Each structure stands twice: as C-alpha cells, then as structure tokens.
C-alpha cells in the first residue's frame, strides 16, 4: 500500500511526512518527527498516555489516523512549555505539587489538564477528576495531580508577573 504525503502542523511548526494510511498520529509524532514526549501506554484509548490536543480538543493520538490530522492544529507536550525556564503554569504546578512520579502518564495528564482549564478555569475537584477519567496513573493515586490542576487553574486566572 503506497504511502501518502501528509502535512501536519505540530506545535505551530509545519511538517510534511510520507505515512502509511494506517499510521496513527502517535506513531508519526514519535517515529517520524521524534517528538517522543507523547507516550504509548495501551493503544486502545484507555490510558491517555498518548493524549494530544487537536484543534484544542484532547484526543488519543493512538486512535487518530495521521491522514485525518491534516490541516489541524496539533499540540503535544513539547508545545506546552517553551523551555525549562518558560514552563506552562500546569507544568510548574505538576512539579511543585509532587504530581509526578514515574512520569510516563505525565505528558498526557498535562494535556488533559490543559484541555480542561482552557475550557473551564474554575473546575471543582469532581470536575477535575472527571476530566482525568481517561488518563490512568499507577504511581500517584491522582491526589497530587488533582491538586496541581487546582493550583494551576488559580495561577492561570491570576497570572503573577515574573519577578
């Protein structure tokens, strides 16, 4: 089966890749674009490790065909914070609140959190937990992740100027 050329816009950057029609977005991100921050945890859409934003919505990149992601705005974990010095408030909160252990679920968690907070800057604890229902974590018991998202939400509402 011949490969097809696909134009992707990832984290604002244009890419053109020849992909198998059966190639999933996560495969192309990781193997072709070397954006390995997006993880593969299950390939059945149950764990959320591969979560990315497509046109602002969180999706499982393991169940998204690369050919169907054409012309859309894709944000991966690499596009959330610009550098170690310029982290997104969600990333800062994940670090400071101890929301990270093995870190394998973290990129997906951060993108699910971003999807939530971009839509709803004042989520209740229950809304946060519901928003994380598609992201499994085996290390943290979620408590600190939930807390980090609360803290990040506050900070995103009231951004403090850099010292």
């Amino acid at each position: 089966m011949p490969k097809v050329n696909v134009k992707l816009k990832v984290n604002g950057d244009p890419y053109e890749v020849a992909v198998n029609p059966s190639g999933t977005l996560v495969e192309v991100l990781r193997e072709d674009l070397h954006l390995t921050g997006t993880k593969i945890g299950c390939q059945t859409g149950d764990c959320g490790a591969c979560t990315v934003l497509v046109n602002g919505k969180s999706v499982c990149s393991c169940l998204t065909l690369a050919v169907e992601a054409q012309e859309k705005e894709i944000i991966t974990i690499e596009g959330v914070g610009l550098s170690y010095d310029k982290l997104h408030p969600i990333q800062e909160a994940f670090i400071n609140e101890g929301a990270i252990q093995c870190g394998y679920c973290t990129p997906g968690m951060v993108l699910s959190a971003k999807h939530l907070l971009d839509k709803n800057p004042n989520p209740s604890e229950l809304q946060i937990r519901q928003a994380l229902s598609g992201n499994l974590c085996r290390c943290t018991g979620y408590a600190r992740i939930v807390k980090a998202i609360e803290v990040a939400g506050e900070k995103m509402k009231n951004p403090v100027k850099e010292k």
Partner: protein
Amino acid sequence: MSIPKFTYLAPKTLKEALIMRASHGSKSSIMAGGTDLLIKMGLRTLQPEFVIGLNSVPEIDYITLRPGGELAIGPMAKLSAVVEDAEVEKNFPALSEAASVTATVQIRNMGTLIGNICNASPSADNATPLMIYDTKVVIIRSDGERVVPIEEFFKGPGKSVLETGELVKEFLIPIPEKSTGSNYQKVSTRSKVDIAGICVSALLTLNNDGTVSKARIALGAVAPKPIRVVKAEKILTGKTPTKELFNDAAKIAREEASPISDMRASAEYRKAMVEVLTRRALDASLAAATKKKN
C-alpha cells in the same frame, strides 16, 4: 499492536462515500470517529482493505433542532457535542447522561454518537436512551432513503439492519411531550467511565390526572442487542404510578432480560441489576415528569 495496512478513502459527500462502499463492499469499513474501528483493527478482529473516512465530508457534524420539533444529529456529531448540547440536556436528559459517561473525555472528543450506535454493541451506552425517545434512524443508499425505528436497528452483537450499500445519514429524535421524565442508570465495576456492565433507560409521560400516558423501558448489555421491554411498558400505561407498579415493571424487565455470563458480570447478577436499575430509572423518571407537570 500496529494497525494492519489499508487504503484510506476520503469521500467529499455522503453520496460519494456510498459509491465507494458499494464498490468495495465487505472489504471496506466506514470510519467516523474511528475510536472503535481502529481498536478492532489493532486487535485484528477486523481487517478491512479500504477505510472510508467520513472526516472529509463537510457539514455532517451537527446537532440541530428541526422545525416540527425534532432534534437531528448528524453522523460526525461527537459524543462530547452531545454532552455539551443544551437542547439535548433539556429535552433528552437520559441521552445527555449516557453520553457523558460513555468512555473517557478523549474518546468522547473523537467518537461519534452515530458511530457508537452503528457498532451495534449490546452494551453501547447510548442505545437505550435513544430507544426510549423513539429515535428514528435515517438510512441512505445510492437510490434513496429509508427510516427505521431505532429498536429495529439492532440485529445482534455487532449486527444492524444496515446493508453494505447503506449509511446512517442522521438520527431524528422527537421532542417529548411536556410532562415527560426520563432517566439513565448504569452499574459497573470501576466508577462511571467503564464499559456498561448493565444499563437501563426509562421514560414516563404523565396525563393531567397523574396516570401514565406513555412509558418506555430499554435495557442494555443484557441481551444480544439492546432491547425494549414492551410488556412492562404496557402494564404501566394508563395506570397511576405506585411503588408496587414499578416493582412489577422491574420484575418483568428482569424476566425479559436474557444476559450471558462473561468476564464483566454473571448472568444472574445482570438480571438482578436489571430489576434494580429499572426501578431506579422509573422512580427518577416519575420524579422528573411530576416536576415538569406541575
């Protein structure tokens, strides 16, 4: 677990999709959100040579109120859109609830309501609410359209009345009468976001005197396909709701269920839950209907 290779086809209209479908027949699969299809392909339970993606068809992602009081839902309307739609929440709360507990946030952002139904899984969360609201399935093929009531749509596990040359064009759901209450109930091992162990939807419309003018009960995951419990609906109709009446209806529902035992639950448990959930769904429907009537 990579996805087996296929040729991807991108029709520009539903008509074009139908032509592709007609020429490739059973070697092809229609893909809407892809969340179910790609898993099946990854697990090698389905290996189409051609995938016809509806993603490229414009203007079929809609949820809209049609003149005449019907809600129309298009084939690319995502489950998250169903959850967020104010008309759905107002008029079809059982559907709103079912859609909100279908899979996860990400899957709801990708998967479509119609796709969820076309898979004809016995446990599809959204089938039972669509059944209690008398949803009409509009099916198109190259030479025309036909309309099928949703309870006739399912044939068995993974099987529907859709023929190879056909597609679901949209769902039409009539807005219920004012004094109607409806409810969706589900039980499963892990919180709400879980494949439905067992689910029940109910609907009651009340007359001015408080008697039931219309009743609907639908069960999921307890038979080879989602089913209506017409027998129980009949004993409710025309009567004044009482605890005993609901208990009787729930018992009938239990008897009508013919579940299997599998790794998700045993048949006995499923039958028992049908009774519990039917009673709860009727109670909640009555409360909602009474509130609306007054």
